[in-house]
């Protein structure tokens, strides 16, 4: 098997993998009754833009167009199509793997060009008739943001890789903010100035090739490449997991020490079995954003409902419902956290365990109930 066949096989299996995930979520009935009409309607609407621009078209400023183009470019990632098992065959099939990566590189670039071309094609009526841009100016935008995408992808694969933790996160956020500002202040002007745009594009492309070439022609970055590739490979499934509240999300632990109680400080000084269970549960809730978010979400929705609903009796009804719901939510969470874990499940039958569950539910519901009661007092 040559490198192109191997690459082709990997792309095919990736497409099949993503399609199967999609099929698992969207069945053929939804596909038939939702996507097909939406596609037909989309084509009709797009055609109508060429005849007459919609009224809301004036809201699509050039700044917005550039921002969307920036987002598309910035969110594009290189795919290497390497797999974990490749690590085993690295020594004997080094050239094959490197050549496959080169095909994958070309594939990533081509995909980015198509993505950007598709975007420009979609907004073409607005660019032509709303912003009165010439064809050369539009090509200039396309070239500029496509090359910016190459630049951003190569940057993504090298930037901040040596840093870890909060410093890395802060620098990443600052860098993104700086790029957005740069886009809105500088790129919007450069992108429609053909000569300037082509010069900057050339620099972007040169930078991306020079910075990415060492990675492309080597296997020493295999582990990083696999991690990144795996992330991209599982992007769709992770998105579904994030959107679905019922699916248990696998947790990837990166932080060595927790933020709160860094030196394993104790919440309760007196050590009893009951306090042990309570401390375990409270610390897990405090350190797991998903659980904490659920608590705040529940309280937030109730507060909005109390503010929005006018009759007092309904507010009281909501408050009573919230109290019951909060207790039951905390109870379920206890079961999910404590009883699903063999470490603490063994103590299930103990009286201390049951008392701890009741007390923890009571204590943890107090702050939320106080806030809801204050809001209710203000709104009655």
């Amino acid at each position, binding site marked *: 098997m040559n490198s192109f066949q191997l690459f082709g096989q990997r792309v095919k299996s990736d497409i099949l993998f993503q399609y199967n995930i999609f099929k698992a979520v969207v069945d053929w009935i939804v596909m038939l009754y939702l996507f097909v009409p939406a596609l037909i309607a989309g084509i009709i609407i797009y055609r109508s833009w060429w005849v007459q621009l919609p009224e809301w078209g004036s809201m699509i400023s050039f700044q917005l167009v550039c921002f969307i183009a920036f987002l598309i470019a910035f969110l594009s990632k290189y795919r290497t199509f390497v797999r974990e098992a490749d690590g085993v065959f690295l020594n004997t099939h080094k050239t094959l793997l490197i050549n496959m990566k080169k095909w994958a590189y070309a594939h990533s670039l081509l995909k980015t060009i198509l993505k950007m071309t598709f975007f420009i094609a979609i907004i073409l009526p607005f660019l032509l008739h709303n912003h009165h841009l010439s064809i050369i100016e539009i090509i200039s935008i396309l070239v500029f943001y496509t090359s910016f995408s190459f630049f951003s992808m190569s940057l993504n694969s090298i930037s901040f890789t040596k840093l870890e933790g909060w410093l890395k996160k802060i620098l990443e956020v600052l860098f993104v903010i700086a790029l957005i500002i740069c886009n809105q202040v500088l790129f919007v002007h450069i992108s429609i100035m053909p000569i300037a745009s082509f010069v900057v594009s050339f620099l972007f492309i040169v930078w991306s090739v020079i910075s990415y070439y060492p990675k492309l022609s080597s296997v020493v970055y295999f582990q990083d490449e696999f991690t990144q590739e795996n992330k991209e490979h599982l992007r769709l499934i992770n998105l579904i997991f994030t959107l679905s509240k019922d699916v248990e999300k696998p947790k990837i632990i*990166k932080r060595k020490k*927790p933020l709160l109680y860094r030196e394993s400080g104790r919440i309760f000084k007196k*050590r009893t079995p009951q306090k042990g269970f309570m*401390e*375990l549960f409270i*610390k897990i809730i405090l350190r797991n954003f998903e659980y904490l978010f659920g608590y705040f979400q529940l309280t937030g929705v109730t507060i909005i409902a109390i503010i929005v609903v006018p009759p007092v009796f309904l507010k009281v009804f909501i408050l009573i419902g919230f109290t019951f719901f909060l207790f039951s939510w905390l109870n379920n969470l206890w079961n999910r956290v404590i009883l699903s874990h063999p470490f603490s499940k*063994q103590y299930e039958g103990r009286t201390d365990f049951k008392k701890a569950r009741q007390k923890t539910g009571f204590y943890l519901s107090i702050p939320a109930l106080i806030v809801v009661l204050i809001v209710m007092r203000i709104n009655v």
Partner: protein
Amino acid sequence: MSLLSVRIEEAGYELDKKMIQDIRFQLDRGELVGIIGANGAGKSTTIKSILGLMPFINGKIEKQENLTVSYLPEHPVFYDELTLQEHIDFVAAVEGISDEQLSARTLPLLEKFNLKEHVHEVPGTYSKGMRQKAMIILALMKSPDILIVDEPFIGLDPVATKLLLDLINEERQRGTGILMSTHVLDTAEKICNRFLLIDNGCLTAQGTLSELQEQCGRTANHSLLDCFHHLTVGEGDE
């Protein structure tokens, strides 16, 4: 009276699908009993049945009252959000271990296993061997009367393996009854008092090494591996 008396008629994950059957044995104070068998023979199922973790079990697991049981699983499990110290504190609080006892029991173990520096870190970020060591500390800090160990040597470096063997020996001297499932037959041969051979979910043979040698018609020169092979694969396959 034995520390633990096991009489499993049958057990499994589903009502009509038994994984193990007719397993009967006892565990006495200070005794180390090795559970041996091929992959999928039913060793872990037997352990889970004893621990009460099997959904369907028909039989009786009897142990003396107020005995502390510790379990050292094959794959270490921790809370993602808690540090090792917090796991230790939790076990101490629940098992009623005072702070003085806790320090006396855990500090030497943390030092021996080189985990003292990492005690305020989340075990999920440890290496495989470190996680196994952390699990050993959590199992032994209770000073258990019965210690149930599933494949304890996997993931441990030679130093930690030796340390674990020493600790197992110390526990035995203290009177702990130990039930250990393992594939490492040469080590098991040296340290176990008795063996339970499980094959296809059934207790095929049990006894000391010399009793097993006798059961399969072997001389004293034959190892546990020879006996295991003879009893599971058959005579003609050697």
